[in-house]
């Protein structure tokens, strides 16, 4: 290509690719407006309803922040839902025996332990993370069922429940605070730290990253650790919100989390993604769920409509990637 041709080819695509980058925000506003217009009379715009959307999606949003890092390295973590369930059980059991601090440590420890195993299997042994975490999904769920004897383990500690998802700070649900805090930290880490840069470089072109001195195996280990710890935090939030640890918590969340990240513009092939986009993706999914309920659709119809909307949104946001 001559330089002149290269120059003209280079000018053209920027405005188009720009609006695609903001598709998640555009989609969010459009769908919000449609629901506000059609469902306003059914209480969609009621502040309580809007806060409810946040309560229902904050946990997905927290995990989707970590998933942005995992997908950013072109890896995947399918075990997050099961790890959330296991961590809720571990937290409840720990609290029973060791008190509140012990419970929190048990919950986070679960995340660290699972993350270390996932990371080691993926980077040390070389099993693709898809398989590692698929297997881990079953193992974590199974362990949760086993140690809890499939029973719910109640959490009676009021302060724990208030901090981890159950309470409000004034009018603000604590879940919203968790979401904002995790989102803010995640955003800064991905955007402004050397770690974040290396995550995206690893996913963008692993060979080139390795040639550039990035220890790509260590980066992958760390992001898998990160997502397991975030999943464990999600489990602790479930436990606080519903005053118990149950192995069922988080079932199917892995798919919601991945859908949220991809809706938010994170590439499944690595190298691109934003934390804010993923959170918006989670909120959009919550928004759609809420609207469909208010429309009075049956659960079966909700599933179909939600699937269709997600396909359309992802199709639009992904067309730029060839």
């Amino acid at each position, binding site marked *: 290509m001559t*330089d002149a041709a*290269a120059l003209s080819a280079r000018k053209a695509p*920027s405005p188009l690719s720009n609006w695609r980058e903001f598709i998640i925000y555009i989609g969010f506003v459009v769908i919000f407006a449609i629901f506000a217009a059609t469902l306003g009379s059914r209480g969609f715009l009621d502040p309580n309803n809007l806060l409810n959307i946040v309560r229902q999606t904050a946990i997905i949003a927290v995990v989707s922040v970590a998933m942005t890092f995992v997908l950013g390295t072109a890896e995947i973590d399918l075990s997050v839902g099961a790890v959330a369930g296991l961590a809720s059980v571990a937290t409840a059991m720990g609290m029973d025996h060791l008190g509140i601090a012990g419970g929190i440590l048990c919950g986070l420890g679960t995340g660290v332990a699972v993350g270390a195993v996932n990371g080691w299997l993926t980077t040390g042994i070389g099993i693709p993370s898809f398989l590692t975490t698929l297997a881990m999904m079953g193992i974590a769920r199974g362990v949760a069922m086993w140690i809890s004897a499939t029973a719910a383990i109640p959490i009676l500690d009021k302060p724990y429940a208030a901090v981890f998802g159950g309470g409000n700070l004034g009018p603000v649900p604590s879940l919203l605070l968790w979401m904002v805090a995790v989102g803010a930290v995640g955003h800064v880490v991905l955007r402004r730290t050397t770690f974040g840069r290396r995550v995206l470089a690893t996913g963008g072109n692993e060979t*080139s990253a390795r*040639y550039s001195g990035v220890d790509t195996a260590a980066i992958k280990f760390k992001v898998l650790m990160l997502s397991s710890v975030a999943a464990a935090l999600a489990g602790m939030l479930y436990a606080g919100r519903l005053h118990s640890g149950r192995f069922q918590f988080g079932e199917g969340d892995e798919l919601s989390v991945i859908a949220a990240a991809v809706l938010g513009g994170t590439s499944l092939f690595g190298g691109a993604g934003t934390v804010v986009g993923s959170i918006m993706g989670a909120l959009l999914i919550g928004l759609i769920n809420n609207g469909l309920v208010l429309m009075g659709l049956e659960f079966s119809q909700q599933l179909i409509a939600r699937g269709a909307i997600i396909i359309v949104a992802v199709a639009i946001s992904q067309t730029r990637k060839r």
Partner: protein
Amino acid sequence: MTATAFPDAVRMTDVSKHFGGVRALDGVSLDVRPGEVHALLGENGAGKSTILKILRGVQPPTSGTVAIGGTPLTTFTAEAARAAGVSMAFQEMSLVPTLTVAQNVFLDREIKRGALIDDRAAIAESRRLFAAMGVAIDPTRRVADIPAGHRQLTEIVKATSQPCKVLVLDEPTTALSANEVERLFDYVRQLRSRGVAVVYVSHRMDEIFRIADRATVLRDGKHVVTAPLADFTLDSMIAAIIGRRSRGFSDVARGTAAIGDVLLEARGLSGQVKPRDVDITLRRGEVVGVAGLLGSGRSSLARLLCGVQPAAAGEIRVKGEPVSIASPRDAIRAGIALVPEDRARQGFVAFHSVESNVALPNLAAVSKGGFVDPRRVAALAEAAIKRLRIKTDSRGAAVRTLSGGNAQKVVIAKWLATEPDVLILDEPTAGIDIGSKSEIVTLIRDLARDGKAVLVLSSELQELLAACDRILVMSDGRVVRDIARHDLDDPGNPESVDALQHAEQKLNQAMQEARGGPAR
């Protein structure tokens, strides 16, 4: 060869191929007779691969006609060329590594019994073919598990496992041992005696002189000469391939840099396979070139020095201090940087910005406590764009929107920003336009003048001659010659316009001699 009543196996008449404004082929005619080995020669970019692509139907010519065995080729698809009798053994391996040798040989035209694939017949047939070639390759083994040389032979057996009129061999010996080359040549002679026309592409002149009956030389998309091998000498053949023209490097100012202390020293450096027992000394202000044919171990040497591949043996010293280089990070820390051979795969993240790419190997320098300072990243990128005159919309533009030459400058820039003492460039001007080539060679000279030691690995000899003070010739993993640049000048006439041609011819000769081939 005698002229016969048979039609030519290949007759290309006045074939041209344009890509946009570029003439890859310009009115080339080629005839290959049944039962001859016809060498197709030329530098990279001379038009050889375009001819091969037309011949095997992958690209239609812009104008001109192609006939195979007297029948004009009207549709240009791989299937049509195949049906006309053209078979090709690929230089870039086309085998599926997870299938067995026999399954690969009969891929997509499996021997069947009824509706089912008859693996046993395929194995027996493959065994027969390998026996005809005289090599012991087990057809039941997976391709991934056999050595590279055997893979290359399997590729050739696959191409000849069905009747063909024309067999195209593109650099068929790069992975072969001397003994395997003999087996291959015997096999080619068998095919020739059966009336197969063999089109043989290779940079290894000694092999051409041994196996080919006639040769056609291309240069810049044009036909230069077709003649029986007996009419060529090594000199005249190289002269025909190189031609008598400047390729834009003549404007490179070769200011002499002050050669200083030793920056990089390698002793007995060996990789798993290649290189073998290599000694290298690089001094401050010096540009050293590494020349060598495909498979000589050039790129392995580069990967070893920058820590991408582990060294099996040997010692590396930087500024006299022994260093252990187990990873690219170690190399960066020791002050060694590599501009790798495969830009798109190894050099940059295509859809990330110029800024991100320049920052990547320099993150430690532009951050504090793990936090990246966006102003320092921006300053680094702006400085790089300015210093190397990178043509880009902005530092935020994705590297994939840049031309090849500018993308290469981004790769060089990101490594220069690490402030290395030793810069290694592997094929630094591959696939970029001539203007950028000369700019990059000028840059290499400037870097040496600024006190760096530069190692340039290249298959383009003019580039080495324009850039280097000293040229090492590698063959079969070893450094076999160490030639000072001025020894390649024509002593009687150092300033003539033909000086570069003269030097290139001498270097080319040195490389061919290094392969131990007969210099006729």
